[in-house]
């Protein structure tokens, strides 16, 4: 379980997270929604120890992340896989080498075992035939699926997704959505997704948290979140109406 308590994080001159608290429950998909630039990605980086909050506590399975030593952070990170916004695949490596990288760099398996596992995970995301392709040859959706395969190769307990459908066309977004849902159902991984995509949230979320002004302002199960009236429902409706109004005024 991931627990954040009173997390405060600020860049010079700008507070991003302010007394943020949330519990991420095991074996379900929790989606954190909120406007762009509100600090959702910063929260993920704080959870993974890539950014260090100024105060507060974040624990993963009871192990404290804030203030942990480098060795402790490395041990915690072994339990986490993360999908970055655009996949963050290594440009100089093939798809196979990208997925194999965590295993081969740390010498965690023999050559044959690495090949078997990489191909198994490429099968899982449906891209085995692209094993020899370079990342530049792939579409945005494919890159993200490969990135998920890479994140999962060490079989983490937690999978964090940073805007998994941002910038994708509706068809590619639907493919990524169904992959996240399938992984969740088949492997029961604890997933934390940050997004402002309403359709994605509706499709994959078990629990939904609304992030506003650096803190979680509402946290509810899927049914309650989309029931009227609720803060999360209001947020989605407000967003949609705002976008439509902006499009209308431009038209």
């Amino acid at each position, binding site marked *: 379980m991931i627990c954040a308590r009173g997390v405060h994080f600020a860049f010079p001159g700008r507070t991003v997270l302010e007394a943020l608290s949330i519990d991420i429950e095991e074996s379900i998909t929790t989606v954190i929604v909120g406007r762009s630039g509100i600090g959702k990605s910063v929260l993920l*980086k704080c959870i*993974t120890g*890539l950014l260090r909050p100024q105060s507060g506590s974040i624990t993963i399975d009871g192990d404290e992340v804030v203030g942990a030593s480098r060795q402790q952070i*490395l041990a915690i*990170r*072994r339990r*986490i*896989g*993360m999908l*970055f*916004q*655009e996949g*963050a*695949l*290594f*440009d100089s490596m093939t798809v196979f080498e990208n997925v194999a*990288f*965590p295993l081969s*760099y*740390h010498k965690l398996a023999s050559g044959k075992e690495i090949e078997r596992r990489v191909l198994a995970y490429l099968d899982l995301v449906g891209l085995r035939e692209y094993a020899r392709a370079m990342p530049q040859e792939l579409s945005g959706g494919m890159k993200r699926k490969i990135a998920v395969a890479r994140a999962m190769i*060490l079989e983490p307990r937690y999978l964090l997704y940073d805007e998994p459908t941002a910038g994708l066309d509706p068809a590619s977004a639907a493919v990524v959505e169904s992959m996240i849902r399938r992984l969740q159902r088949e492997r029961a991984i604890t997933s934390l997704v940050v997004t402002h995509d309403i359709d994605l949230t509706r499709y994959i979320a078990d629990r939904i948290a609304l992030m506003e002004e650096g803190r979680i302002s509402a946290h509810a199960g899927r049914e309650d979140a989309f029931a009227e009236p609720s803060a999360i429902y209001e947020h989605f409706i407000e967003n949609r109406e705002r976008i439509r109004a902006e499009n209308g005024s431009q038209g």
Partner: protein
Amino acid sequence: MSRPESEAAREWRHAGASTASMYGNFFFWLFREPFPTRQLGAQIVRVMLEGFGILAVAGIVEGAMFAWLGGWYGTKFSVVNWAGAASLYLLLSAATTLFGAMMFAAKIGTAFTVEIGSMQMSGQLDALRLMAVEPTQYIVIPRVLASILCLPILKAISDACAIIAAIVLSKLWFDISVPIFLQHALLVLKHTILTTSYIRCALHAFFISINACGLGFHFQGGAIELGRTTTKSIVINLICVLVIDTVYGVMDSVFGWSTV
């Protein structure tokens, strides 16, 4: 009351801090396991391939230019036979080292900054950290060590090109025969000239690659900022090369390494 810091001042302060912290990071990670042997090999090949053309062309241009200047002034002061000696002395003691380092900063240094900066921008460095791979160890150390190993070799290639260009131009333009050219050249060349120039080369490579990697590593922003950071990389590195050569010049005058 203190004046608010301007945007440019803030950017330069960040650039200074980025490069300074990379020196500490480099030595901290250099002696820690695992040593990135495969990446070092790949970077050696890459730096040699990318640097060969520009350093060879620079050597030819420098050789021709210095031979022409030597021949022209030699003719004017009736010491044309010494033109080869003068041009080779200037080339090997200063020109190929200085211009070679500048070309290296422009070609390889900027490539390091842009490459690592775009890795930072696209989250690849964070992805490495999440896989328990230290980016300084995996990305920076191979590039710096490859630069230190390759720039002296590239300088040797540049020197050879410069010597051949100087001999050919001296023969064709000023009718200085090859034996006369070499005979006078050998009279003025001391082994310390070559030794110190190659040591300077390795120093240039170290500073250029660390500065370039540091700026890319701590890069923040988008495409415009990456462009600015790349400009900073070349400016800082050119200044660095000039400072190293100035310090060397002062020490040389004190210790007389290159005295004919």
